């Protein structure tokens, strides 16, 4: 089946203060998505301040130059919109989706906090408490919390930026100061270190004027140099395990380093497709073998990037496989069978139609995501930030469709046990 494509128009320009702007109009629904992305994430936070990038994201909602605490939320929701933000390894995003008539309000709100958040001791302490509850609900009070995104990086990586816990230790979070926050803002939240993307129902000329009006006088500051977080991959198999006292069943995740997602995109893309060949649906190789045939796993999934953001992550990153096992399941056996299947793929190649059907399904997923205005604004803002290529979003279904069997086979051949880092969850319920 021929893989279709989208043709969302893309307009780009840069303001005098360095803010890079992407406009992608589409008038099929009366809504707009606004995304501002800053080029700083978990990997840039200082030692002794684990979790700070995420804590700072919370502080960006606590009021700004012309806005009291609570005002941001009320102005977005009182316009009929929704907001959020999220902190990733390499970037932090802030976004709104609103009825089209609220575009200018969203631009005002984003520009106001780009000029500067209101950093107060009271707001900081309040948000430290909120973040601790976030960590409790997502990690400490539930089974498999932080598995594998917080548990595998310290096994795979050596250096602090790549290996540390991005949610942060309670000690580090409690040690954070208003001065830390002011310095973090000064260093990383310069307009020249950010991109703005607007998607949806608007007129380009009007939106351009509004953006110049609201963001044009955000004072420029020097942008930080892009750090290089490269480190060598594992030269021998690495493996660790931990007891999860809330988990009833075993689980295991392995990761292998992959080529640089940006500098070596052509070599990288086959790994993205390979993860789907291995694990997308009941007809994929690993699901068929481990779940259906051998019944040694209850589920198995594969993806790239510890936060599943394969087109929005920088080097170094990894292809991950994660499996949940039945009671008494044998993780060694799961890993052995994975190796066997990878060997079989590397030596025997693909079956007829296997690649084409995987590519067709990947196209559906890609296209489906872009149907929502934020599914265009957010990735385009990040693609602009990291690659200067927001239009890549339109091209991905086709590029995925051009990956060849030879590339998949070559990628599979690199997923050797000696390049693997593995973390295993030992169930601790009733123990």
């Amino acid at each position, binding site marked *: *089946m021929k*893989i*279709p494509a989208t043709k969302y128009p893309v307009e780009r320009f840069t303001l005098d203060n360095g803010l890079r702007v992407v406009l992608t109009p589409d008038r*099929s*629904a*009366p*809504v707009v998505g606004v995304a501002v992305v800053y080029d700083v994430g978990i990997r840039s936070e200082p030692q002794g301040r684990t979790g700070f990038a995420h804590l700072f994201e919370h502080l960006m909602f606590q009021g700004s*130059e*012309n806005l009291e*605490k*609570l005002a941001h*939320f*009320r102005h977005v*929701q*009182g316009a*009929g919109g929704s907001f959020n933000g999220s902190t990733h390894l390499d970037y932090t995003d802030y976004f709104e989706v*609103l*009825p089209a*008539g*609220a*575009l*200018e*309000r969203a*631009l*005002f709100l984003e520009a106001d906090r780009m000029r500067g958040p209101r950093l107060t001791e009271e707001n900081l302490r*309040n948000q*430290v408490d*909120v973040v601790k*509850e*976030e960590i*409790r*609900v997502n990690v400490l*009070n*539930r*089974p*498999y919390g932080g598995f594998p995104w917080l548990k595998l990086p310290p096994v795979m990586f050596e250096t602090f930026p790549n290996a540390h816990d991005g949610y942060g230790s309670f000690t580090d979070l409690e040690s954070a100061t208003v001065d830390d926050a002011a310095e973090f803002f000064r260093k990383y939240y310069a307009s020249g270190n950010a991109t703005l993307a607007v998607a949806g129902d608007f007129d380009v000329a009007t939106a351009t004027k509004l953006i110049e009006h609201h963001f044009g*006088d955000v004072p420029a500051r020097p942008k930080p140099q892009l750090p290089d977080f490269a480190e060598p991959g594992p030269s021998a198999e690495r493996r660790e395990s931990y007891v999860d006292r809330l*988990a*009833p*069943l075993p689980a295991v995740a392995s990761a292998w380093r992959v080529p640089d997602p940006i500098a070596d995109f052509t070599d990288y893309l086959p790994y993205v497709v390979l993860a789907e060949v291995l694990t997308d649906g*009941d*007809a994929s190789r690993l699901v068929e073998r481990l*779940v*259906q045939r051998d019944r040694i796993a209850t*589920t198995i999934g594969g993806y790239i990037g510890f936060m599943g953001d394969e087109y929005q992550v920088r080097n170094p990153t990894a292809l991950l496989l994660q499996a*949940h096992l039945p*009671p008494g399941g044998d993780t060694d056996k799961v890993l052995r069978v994975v190796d066997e299947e990878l060997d079989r793929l590397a030596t025997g190649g693909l079956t007829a*139609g296997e690649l*084409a*059907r995987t590519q*067709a*399904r990947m*196209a*559906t997923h890609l*296209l*489906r995501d*872009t*149907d*929502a*205005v934020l599914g265009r604004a957010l990735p385009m803002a990040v693609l602009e930030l990291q690659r200067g290529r927001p239009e890549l979003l339109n091209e991905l279904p086709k590029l995925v469709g051009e990956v060849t069997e030879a590339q998949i086979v070559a990628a599979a051949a690199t997923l050797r046990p000696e390049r693997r880092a593995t973390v295993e969850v030992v169930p601790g319920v009733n123990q």
Partner: protein
Amino acid sequence: MSNRSLPDLVPDSKIRLPKQAERTLSSGLTVIAIRRPAVPLVELRLRVPFGRAPLARATLLSQALFTGTATMSSIDIAAELQAVGGGLSAGLDPDTLLVTGNSLAGGLDRMLEILAGVLTDPAYPADEVATERERLVDHIQVAQSQPAHVARTALLKRMYGRHPYAVQTPEPEQVRGVRPAQLRALHADRVRPDGSVLVLVGDINVEKAIDTAEKALGGWIGAGRDGNLPATPPLEPGPLLLVDRPGAVQSSLRMALPAVPRTDPDYAALQLANMVFGGYFSSRWVENIREDKGYTYGPHTAIEHFLAGSALVVAAEVATEVTGPAMLETLYELGRIASLPPGEEELEQARRYALGTLRLGMSTQAGLAGLASIYASFGLRLDYLTEHSAALSSATREQVAEVAAQYLAPSRAVSVVLGDAEKVEGQLAALTPVERGAA
């Protein structure tokens, strides 16, 4: 410091419903097709009435629906769907078996043919059913270790007593006892077109899409069964039920309050009252217990609709040491919304949020498909969006105050807390009678 003022909103245009068509086939299946050509895909939702179906069998059936037909294995089904960029899966709620899927727009015919095979000629092969049975048992076991699931289970029991809604997840032992022949029998008895609704949304010609569905699903026949459930019983407030989870670092706080269905004249006002109280971020309760007190991360409330009744559910995960104080603020905010009329400005803010959310919800293929499908199961169509917008726009402060007094009064709440009982029982008992119990 600059002094800038908040830009005005450009008033919303009138809600425009997308092009759509509907046909009820001779089998009793209703097909609704909706055009949104923004991306070259099609979304599919099929709702089959499943009320009164035996829980363990129905749950396993939903997990095993795509395990094979007379002519296709589970792998054939998955591979052939993938080939058109497609995927189908099934789930169960107490009223409905729901099939969800999507594919490239050009793959609609094939996706419907495969679905037809699954609906009319299912095999439930013993091996595949055994695999799905074990997976379901494992899945339930993991769910039972998750606080949100345990708290929900306890709340449902407390809310619904002897009504079938009281238990929505089967026990592992019950699932282990289900045989493939029982799935075949249940399928023959209940997976029937009469009363079912198929929704297709996407880059389609609506009339042609219905023709395609009629052709593909022509062989799916059979009269519907009476799956109607008795109306849910009124909530019976009583002591707070405390379920022990030793060592828990958070308590899961849950409350249920009465609510009305979407078509009730009070519904728009109740929705607004809920929002002012706790139904969105800029509500009193969230601003209080999160942004002021820092007790919690993601507190939320929602009106849940099932065919036999509606309820308003309040949920927050709070730190163990502030479980009592968090309950205190929750009771306070419920008491406040039930006793005093909302402010004009906070009501307008909630109203605009409710109206905006309707527009955002219909701005994607998947959003439209979800809305059209859920509305259809309650006998409503997409024009409900227009009617409900009008009701939200016209609800007065007095009406909101009146329904808040009636439905949001804390004295009417059924309350459950899952947490470290030794640490939180005293805190909670200071505020309200507490009884310990099992999930």
